[in-house]
């Protein structure tokens, strides 16, 4: 029971890291290597507001989300749009966007270091909470609940609304979407901006229980990449399920075998998925 609850909570954390990248990569086709930095930026906002004016990260979230949405929209519009226009095929766009966002990640790290070079560490709801006899940290539980809310909302929006359907259509085929009158440019920008906003909000929530610093983003990028590829590019369900599996397996290995083997276990699953289902758990086979 302990393992299932702790594992699911960790899975929630992972889902927060990966849902945004899934949208950005799956729909806008931008392999965003600055994803982790966007997450850390959300954490930095939470930390700054908390230590300066004692603003609860749960409120900071509502500042971070629109700000990150706008920032990511601008990034897409002015930095990435030219790459999209220039790219002759998807492969080229991926290479270009990897290089561009890789550079962007350094710029973001530099900006954040100049604001706060040390650790973003503060204490928020670090209280024990008991579910079914298992003690969990309240801040982790809240992050998990938020991950569920964001995941559900995103899923419903994608599957029950017209703009959501347009986003899914672009994820399937941007060329065919154009033919049926979808404004692919706008939908891509929307998906990229929304993805960035989710990632930044994830960072705000994660900062309540993980100590971050300006340079730690790359670790989150890696984890998010693994989850997105495991789950299947462009499918939000895949990212959430992959995150939950990863959380459960890591916790089980740490509790039952040895904490030292968590990383090995995570990569083993990743390897198995790549070997037996290279398109990811929910991915479509490439045509």
């Amino acid at each position, binding site marked *: 029971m302990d393992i299932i609850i702790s594992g699911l909570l960790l899975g929630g954390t992972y889902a927060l890291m990966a849902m945004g990248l899934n949208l950005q990569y799956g729909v806008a086709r931008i392999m965003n290597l600055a994803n982790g930095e966007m997450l850390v930026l959300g954490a930095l906002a939470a930390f700054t507001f908390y230590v300066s004016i004692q603003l609860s990260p749960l409120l900071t979230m509502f500042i971070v989300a629109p700000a990150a949405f706008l920032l990511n929209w601008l990034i897409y519009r002015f930095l990435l749009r030219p790459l999209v226009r220039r790219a002759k095929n998807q492969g080229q766009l991926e290479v270009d966007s990897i290089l561009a966002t890789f550079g962007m990640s350094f710029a973001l*790290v530099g900006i954040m270091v100049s604001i706060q070079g*040390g*650790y973003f560490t503060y204490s928020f709801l*670090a209280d*024990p909470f008991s579910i079914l006899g298992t003690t969990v940290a309240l801040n982790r539980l809240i992050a998990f609940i938020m991950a569920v809310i964001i995941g559900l909302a995103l899923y419903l929006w994608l599957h029950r609304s017209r703009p959501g359907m347009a986003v899914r259509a672009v994820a399937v085929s941007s060329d065919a979407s154009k033919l049926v009158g979808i404004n692919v440019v706008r939908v891509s920008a929307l998906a990229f901006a929304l993805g960035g906003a989710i990632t930044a909000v994830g960072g705000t929530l994660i900062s309540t229980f993980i*100590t971050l610093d300006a340079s730690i983003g790359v670790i989150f990028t890696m*984890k998010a990449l693994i989850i997105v590829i495991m789950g299947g590019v462009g499918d939000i369900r895949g990212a959430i399920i992959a995150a939950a599996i990863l959380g459960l397996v890591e*916790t089980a290995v740490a509790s039952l075998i*040895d904490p*030292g083997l968590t990383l090995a276990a995570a990569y083993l699953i990743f390897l198995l998925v790549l070997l037996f289902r290279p398109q990811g758990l929910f991915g479509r086979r490439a045509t």
Partner: protein
Amino acid sequence: MNRRNFVAAAAKTVAAAGMAALLAGTALAADTIKLGAVAPKTGPLAGGSTVTHWPSIQLWVKQTNDKGGLTLKDGQKKIELIEYDDKTDPGEHIKAVQRAITQDEVDFLIAPYGTGFNVAVAPIYAKYGYPQIAVTSISDLVGELTERYPGLFFTLGDTTSFVNGVKDILVKMRDEGTIGNKIAMVNVADAFGIELADVARPIFTEAGFDIVYDKSYPLGTPDLSPVVKGAKAANPDAFVAWSYPPDTFAITEQAAIEDLDVKAFYTAVATAFPAYGGKFGSKINGVLGAGGVNPDTPAIAEYRKAHKEITGQEADYWASANTYASMQILGQAIEAVGSTDREAVTQYLKENEFDTIMGPIVFDEQISNRFWTVGQWQDGVFRGVASSNIDGAVPVIAKPGWE
């Protein structure tokens, strides 16, 4: 003007400005002592170096320049500090050091942050004849290294004396009847944590302790609750974590949440950071950690006050003071020699006693045996409870619980 022309023109302007700055720098060079500092400002170790390393260097340079600089035979000279970010990358670090030596032609270098970096650059410092007063560097290889590199000095102790400090405190608590025999020990799975755990295992066992839980976890583990739960299930009397900054915070938070009720709770690096006290407040009263300081001596009190005033942040309760002391040592050696003759300064370092904020420091075979090993949070201050040759250790208290 199209975009390409514009970029080219802009580049030329920047280059010209850079040349002008460079020329101005050369003209000034004769009147200053150039100090090169290469350490992380970004990357995994940046969080620690921006607390412990950079502020003390900047503080010392500012204070020295405010009183006119260092007095040499040919008059007073101000310090020109040249800083490079090594991005916590040994390759970048070595490039930056070479650049500082060959292009900036710095007179002296400030030793890097972190054990691995100090060991990695020792051959380059030695090749060019720069003294290296290593601070944030703890290893059991210090004897071997100082023998190989005649300009390398150590000031923060070695792994064995570090672990012995912890063992002595635990033995003392056991003799007083505060704790029993059972220790739960965890370590971060990187060079630092592995070396400490390897050294600690036989030392603890020899001292009659029973290690009931002994696990490692990868650096950057996002959820340490299985580790803390496992340790708690082993029902220990004392908990020791050879941990690094992000996990030091995470382990402590989990221990409070799980109510890991031990009378001796030890986490390693970052326990001495002011941010640690700031994050946990009164919860961590009685937590033991690496380092320590005696904040009541006038020199340390004055240093901590200046640190706060000038750099805007608090000094940590461990290696901040050692870092500042290493700068004092270098400055005093340069002044005593009266020039930037590196060979003479190195020789002077080996043979003399230095007056620092941590008291008098001498090097015995290039190693200073004056450092703190264990500290404890007591009423909002992290005080030294075990040291090597420093007075002022306070008695250790039993951890009163996580409230």
